[in-house]
């Protein structure tokens, strides 16, 4: 039986849904949920379900950090950036106070130093070349983009190289995480976090108005931003930490490298307690991997429910090279920068950690360079 004949009956010229890939996405999710439940880990199953919801929400809202940042930098349009801030504000309402008050919960924190700045800057270049960030790569791969399959593969490879580079960059120095709730308490920390988000929103609107560009978020971005924010809170409740994406890629890359005979266990990064545990244990024991798998299959289910899945032709070679280079840069940058738009920017700011804003300030100029490099690969600057 051909794959085409497994698609749903066609109505007119277009099939209404793709039964094969809908079944694959739902079946794969069900298998992973069952495996975690058999291990007696309902919170792990919840993380897969939360990731599934995020995949659906991102795909349906067409929520793109990469395109939003590019539209702001090239045209001054601020709606997408403000949609991203809605996500952070909703998430912060739960994360800042709960992380400060409940011992089993923690925020996304990270040291401030050259590693963070260099990593975020390089990530910014990569995300514009790949045309997707950490979460964007996941949901577009899940949504049927073969180009982003290439980006994901190289993201994993780059993040393994990043794991080998990170200890050297940390040795350059830095200061411990700066967390608002440490100085102002849980509620003062929340107020300061929301004020910082409001200030950033005000500055972004000011820039947009000065450039004569639209600053109002679309309906999709408002509804999608609230929905994604609520799902971030759900993932935080299930996993005990804000949603993160890219550590999962590092674990997948390292496990693949180990299977190919490369011994990473002696590398300094992989001797730290957390990474060491992740390398030795089941991939379903890692919170980041669980939400990643859920998001991939959630986006796949949402895409297959609406039209034939992965029906497009492969893009030109130059575009595929851009995806690979961008993936490599993002992977390396994400490890040095302590995450991507989600783990570092959304998670960091929503935790009241200063590193989230530093990450944003360093990634934005990286994006500007990435945008200027896009035409070399046949991609538009818009």
């Amino acid at each position, binding site marked *: 039986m051909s*794959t085409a004949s497994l698609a749903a009956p066609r109505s007119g010229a277009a099939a209404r849904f793709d039964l*094969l*890939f809908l079944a*694959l996405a739902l079946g*794969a999710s069900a*298998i*992973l949920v069952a*495996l*975690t439940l058999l*291990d007696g880990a309902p919170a*792990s199953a919840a993380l897969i379900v939360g990731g599934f919801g995020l995949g659906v929400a991102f795909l349906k809202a067409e929520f793109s950090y990469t395109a939003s940042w590019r539209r702001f930098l090239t045209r001054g349009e601020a709606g997408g950036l403000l949609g991203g801030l809605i996500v952070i504000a909703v998430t912060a309402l739960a994360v800042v106070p709960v992380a400060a008050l409940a011992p089993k919960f*923690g925020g*996304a*924190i*990270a*040291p401030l*130093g050259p590693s963070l700045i260099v990593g975020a800057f390089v990530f910014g270049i990569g995300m514009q070349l790949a045309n997707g960030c950490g979460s964007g790569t996941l949901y577009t791969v899940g949504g049927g983009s*073969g180009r982003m*399959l290439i980006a994901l593969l190289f993201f994993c490879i780059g993040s393994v190289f990043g*794991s080998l580079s*990170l200890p050297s960059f*940390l*040795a350059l*120095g*830095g*200061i*411990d*995480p700066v967390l608002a709730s440490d100085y102002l308490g849980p509620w003062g920390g929340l107020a300061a976090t929301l004020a910082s988000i409001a200030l950033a929103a005000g500055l972004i609107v000011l820039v947009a108005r000065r450039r004569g560009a639209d600053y109002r978020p679309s309906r999709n971005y408002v509804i999608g931003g609230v929905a994604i924010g609520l799902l971030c809170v759900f993932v935080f409740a299930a*996993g*005990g*930490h804000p949603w*993160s994406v890219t*550590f999962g890629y*590092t674990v997948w890359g390292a*496990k693949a490298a180990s299977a190919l005979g490369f011994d990473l266990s002696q590398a300094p990064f992989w001797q*730290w*307690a*957390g*990474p060491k*545990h992740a390398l*030795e*244990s*089941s*991939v*379903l*024991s*890692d*919170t980041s991997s*669980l939400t990643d*798998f859920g998001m991939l299959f959630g986006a796949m289910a949402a895409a297959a429910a609406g039209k034939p*899945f*992965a*029906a*497009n*032709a*492969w893009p030109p070679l130059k575009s595929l090279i851009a995806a690979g280079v961008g993936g490599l840069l993002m992977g390396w940058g994400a490890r040095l920068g*302590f*995450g991507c738009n989600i783990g*570092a920017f959304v*998670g960091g700011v929503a935790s009241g950690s200063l590193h989230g804003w530093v990450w944003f300030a360093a990634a934005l100029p990286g994006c500007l360079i990435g945008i200027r490099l896009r035409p070399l690969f046949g991609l538009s600057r818009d």
Partner: protein
Amino acid sequence: MMRKVYIAVVVLGLAAIVTQHLSSPSSGRAVSPEDFAGACAPCGAPCPSKK
């Protein structure tokens, strides 16, 4: 062509996840590197002050 690539990726990927899970120790509850003592970042990196 892309559909066939996707079918292969999903089936092989799922098989790899299940095989890796069944052949590796599992601690039950999933953990993040931040759950371990001394972690100062989502990847488990130590704090500069601890060096």
